[in-house]
């Protein structure tokens, strides 16, 4: 009976750790996605700024 309870407690601990690991992994993934999104946006804005008025000055 006692060994069953100890095993249950260990399972609970293992589950808790796994949930925490997944939670942190999810937050890290979101942070990486946001950083990459920001980088894309940054290069897009930089391109527009660099081109400036010249974007309209091209042969049609």
């Amino acid at each position, binding site marked *: 009976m006692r060994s069953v309870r100890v095993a249950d407690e260990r399972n609970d601990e293992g589950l808790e*750790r796994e949930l*925490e*690991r997944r*939670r*942190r*992994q999810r937050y*890290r993934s979101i942070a990486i996605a946001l950083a990459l999104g920001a980088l894309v946006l*940054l290069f897009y804005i*930089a391109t527009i*700024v660099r081109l400036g008025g010249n974007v309209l000055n091209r042969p049609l």
Partner: protein
Amino acid sequence: MVDKSIKADSQVLASEAGGTVGDFIALMKPRVMSLVVFTALVGLVVAPGEHHPVLSAIALIAIAVGAGASGALNMWYDADIDARMARTAARPIPRGHVTKEEALAFGVVLAIFSVMTLGLVVNWVAGALLAITIGFYIFIYTMWLKRRTPQNIVIGGAAGAFPPMIGWAAVTGTVSVESILLFLIIFFWTPPHFWALALYRSRDYERVGVPMLPVVAGGDETRRQILIYSALLAPLGAAPGFIGLGGVAYLAASIILGAILMALAVKVYRVREGREADRAAKELFGFSLLYLFLLFAVLLVEHLVRALIAG
């Protein structure tokens, strides 16, 4: 007893679960980053010529991320001594939240992205200077000098002195006398600033074998060197006022701030025993931060006011 087991459990949990986003931000040394961004901003604003605000903002972001990369790579290399020093024991690697390999990968990726972004979006002189800054901090300071010579922070301080020069280069695309002067101010500011800290933290450095000047040459020699560097820094701090980079307000502020710095350096030199000696060193350390901040802040405000008046 219960507290200890909870603490141990949370550490095991942390090391198994990997670092949080906050741990990775801590790897970038946000406080150092803020000083780097501020001095780079001053370089950007005081540089002659027009610069699009968006490109300036991107330049500052790239410089900040480059500084963060340096911080992460420094923590990767110094993880062994960080764990044994009170000031650094709570960093993410010694606490087991982030592995050394993760810190290395994080630092390398940030370094590449920051240099490439600055080079591609702004200009390659600024990009090259950022690459030199990161390389200097990691290879010259962290890997080569820090554990070998008491002159570690004198030469290594150059890495911290580059940001205003990068900001200046972002606008002008060049390196000039004015930006070299801003570089020199931070370069000569670094030794008295860090040696003041090392005076009352020397046991920490001694324990981990980092040859900081108080550990190798003793407190007296450190105090003499602090005085010499402060005496060089005070007139150097006022120099922008004489070459037209700073105006009357800057000149007045730099002279007053330089005088206070010298007074505190003299106090450190004279008071060598007991708690008073530690207090004097702490005062100098604290004021040196304020000194650099105010010097650059006055320069910044003066240029912004001038730009506003000029319309």
